[in-house]
C-alpha cells in the first residue's frame, strides 16, 4: 500500500491550492451567513411566511423561522453541499481521468502498481479532500454560531458537517466512477453535476404534487436531505445509504478501469 500513499499524496498536491481556496472561501461564506442571523432573524421569519410553497420547498422545506431552519435553508440545502461537491467532483474526476488525459499518468500506469491501487489512490485523495473541506466548513460554523447568536449545539453542528461529508464522498465517488470507467474527465464532471442538480430538483419539487410525491425517494439527494441533523442529530441509516452508494460507484469505476485501454 506504499504506492497508494505515494500516489494519494501526489494527487492531493496537484489540486491542493484549489482545495485551500474553496475551503477557506467557503468557511468565510459560512461565517458570514451564520453571523447574519443575529440581525436578519426576525425579518426572515416574516418574509418566509409570504413565500410560495414551491420556493420554500427549494430551500429545504424546514421551519425557516428557527436558527436551525435558517442554517438549513441558507447553507445546508445547496450552498454548503455545492462547495463540498465542487471539491469532490474536481478531485473525483480530475485525479484519475483528468490526470490521465493530461498524460501525467503514463509513468504511473507502467509502474509496478495495479490499476486497482491507482484507483484507490484517487478515491483516497477525493475522500481526504472532502474531509478537509468539510472540517473547514464546520470550523466556520463553530465561529459563525456565536457571532449570529444561533445557539445550536456543537454536537448538532458536527452532525450536519458529517452528513455533508458523506454527501461529498458519494458525489466524489460518482465522478470518480464515471471518469475511471470512461477516461472522459469533462463528461465525468459534467454528468455528475447534472445528476446531482437533477437529484436536488427532484427532491425539492416532487413533494409539491400528490402524483409525484413518491419519486422523492428515488433521488440521490434524498439520503442527504431527508434528515435534519441540526434538529435531530445524525441519522446513521442515511449516512450508510450514502456510503453504500459511494462504494457502488467506486466499484463500478474500478471495474471499468480494468476493462478499458488507458492513455499513456
Amino acid at each position: 500500500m506504499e504506492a497508494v500513499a505515494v500516489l494519494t499524496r501526489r494527487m492531493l498536491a496537484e489540486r491542493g491550492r484549489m482545495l485551500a481556496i474553496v475551503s477557506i472561501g467557503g468557511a468565510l461564506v459560512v461565517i458570514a451567513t451564520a453571523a447574519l442571523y443575529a440581525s436578519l432573524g426576525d425579518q426572515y421569519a416574516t418574509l418566509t411566511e409570504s413565500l410560495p410553497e414551491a420556493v420554500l420547498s427549494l430551500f429545504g422545506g424546514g421551519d425557516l423561522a428557527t436558527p436551525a431552519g435558517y442554517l438549513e435553508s441558507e447553507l445546508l440545502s445547496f450552498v454548503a453541499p455545492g462547495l463540498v461537491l465542487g471539491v469532490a467532483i474536481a478531485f473525483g474526476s480530475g485525479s484519475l481521468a483528468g490526470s490521465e488525459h493530461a498524460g501525467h499518468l503514463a509513468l504511473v500506469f507502467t509502474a509496478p502498481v495495479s490499476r486497482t491501487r491507482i484507483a484507490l489512490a484517487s478515491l483516497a485523495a477525493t475522500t481526504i479532500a472532502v474531509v478537509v473541506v468539510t472540517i473547514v466548513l464546520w470550523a466556520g460554523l463553530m465561529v459563525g454560531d456565536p457571532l449570529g447568536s444561533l445557539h445550536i449545539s456543537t454536537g448538532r453542528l458536527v452532525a450536519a458537517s458529517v452528513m455533508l461529508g458523506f454527501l461529498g464522498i458519494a458525489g466524489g465517488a460518482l465522478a470518480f466512477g464515471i471518469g475511471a470507467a470512461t477516461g472522459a474527465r469533462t463528461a465525468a464532471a459534467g454528468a455528475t453535476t447534472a445528476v446531482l442538480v437533477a437529484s436536488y430538483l427532484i427532491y425539492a419539487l416532487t413533494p409539491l404534487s400528490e402524483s409525484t410525491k413518491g419519486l422523492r425517494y428515488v433521488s440521490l439527494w434524498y439520503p442527504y436531505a431527508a434528515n435534519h441533523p441540526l434538529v435531530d442529530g445524525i441519522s446513521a441509516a442515511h449516512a450508510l445509504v450514502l456510503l453504500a452508494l459511494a462504494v457502488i460507484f467506486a466499484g463500478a469505476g474500478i471495474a471499468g478501469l480494468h476493462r478499458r485501454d488507458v492513455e499513456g
Partner: protein
Amino acid sequence: MDAIRASGLTKRFGHLTAVEDLDLAVEPGEVFGFLGPNGAGKTTTIRCCLDLARPSAGTVSVLGLDSRAGALEIHRRIGYLPGELALPKDLTARELLDFVADLRPGADDSWRDELCDRFDLPLDRHIGGLSTGNTQKIGLVQAFMHRPDVVFLDEPSRGLDPLVQREFHELLAETRARSATVFLSSHTLAEVDRVADRVGILREGRLVVTDTLENLRRRARRRLEIDYDAPPAPPDALGALAGVASVETRGTTLLVSVDGPLDAVLRAALGLGTVVNVRAPEADLEDIFLDYYRGHREATR
C-alpha cells in the same frame, strides 16, 4: 526466451485497424529499431506490450510473461519513455524522479545521480519552466535509472541536442552490454542506423520487413547509371529480367533500378552498346526506408 514476442497482434479502434497481424520477436540484449511513417502503429504496438492498450486479437509477451496477466511483473522490469512525454509542471525534476523512484522501490540512487550528471539535468527547476529537450532528458533518466531488463523508447531523441544524443547512444550501448533489451521507435533514420542491431518497418499497421541493417542494405534497390558512347539499343530484354524495377534511357545513359543481384543486369547492359562509365551509388539509407514506407517493396518475412 524472447525479450519481446508478438504473435498475430491486432489492435482495432472502432473501424480503424492500427496494427494488423503483427509477428515479432526481439532477442534479449538486442537494440531493436521500430520504424514507420506517422500513424503506422508504432506507438500502439508499444502500448500493447505495456498493457496500456489491450490487443483486439493475438498476443504479446514481454520477458516471457503475457502482457495482460503478467503486467505487474513486466512493469517491474521495464523502463518506458512515452512518445508525448507530459510531466506535471508543478514538480521539479528531482521531485519527479523521487516520485517515480517511490513507485519503483529498490533502485540504485548513485546510478540515478550519475545519469542526471551525464545528461546535465537541471534538477531543481520546475518542469513547467524547462525546455522540451530538458524535459525529455528527465524522461530518459527515469526510463533507465532502475536498470530495467527491457526499455521501451518512443521517439527518444525528440528535442535532444547532438551532445545529449551522443550520451544517449552510449547509454544504449551500455544497456546492450549488460544484456538488457531496447525497443526503440524512431523517425530519425541516422540514429537507428547508428544504434540498432535490427530494424522493423511498420506501414499501415503491418510489419513489412524485419532485418539487420546490413542485410537491408545488401537487398536494397540500387540505381545504376550506365553511360554509353552512343544511345544504347532498346533495353527490352533487360527490363524483363528478374529484380529489375525500372529501366529508362536518357540520351546515352541507361538508368536501371535493381532489387537484388546485379550480375545478370550488368551482363545484359554490356550487350546494349559500348559502356563508357558505370555509376552505382551505395544504397542510401533514407531511400531504403522510404521505399518501404511508400510501399514500393514488400519483403518476404
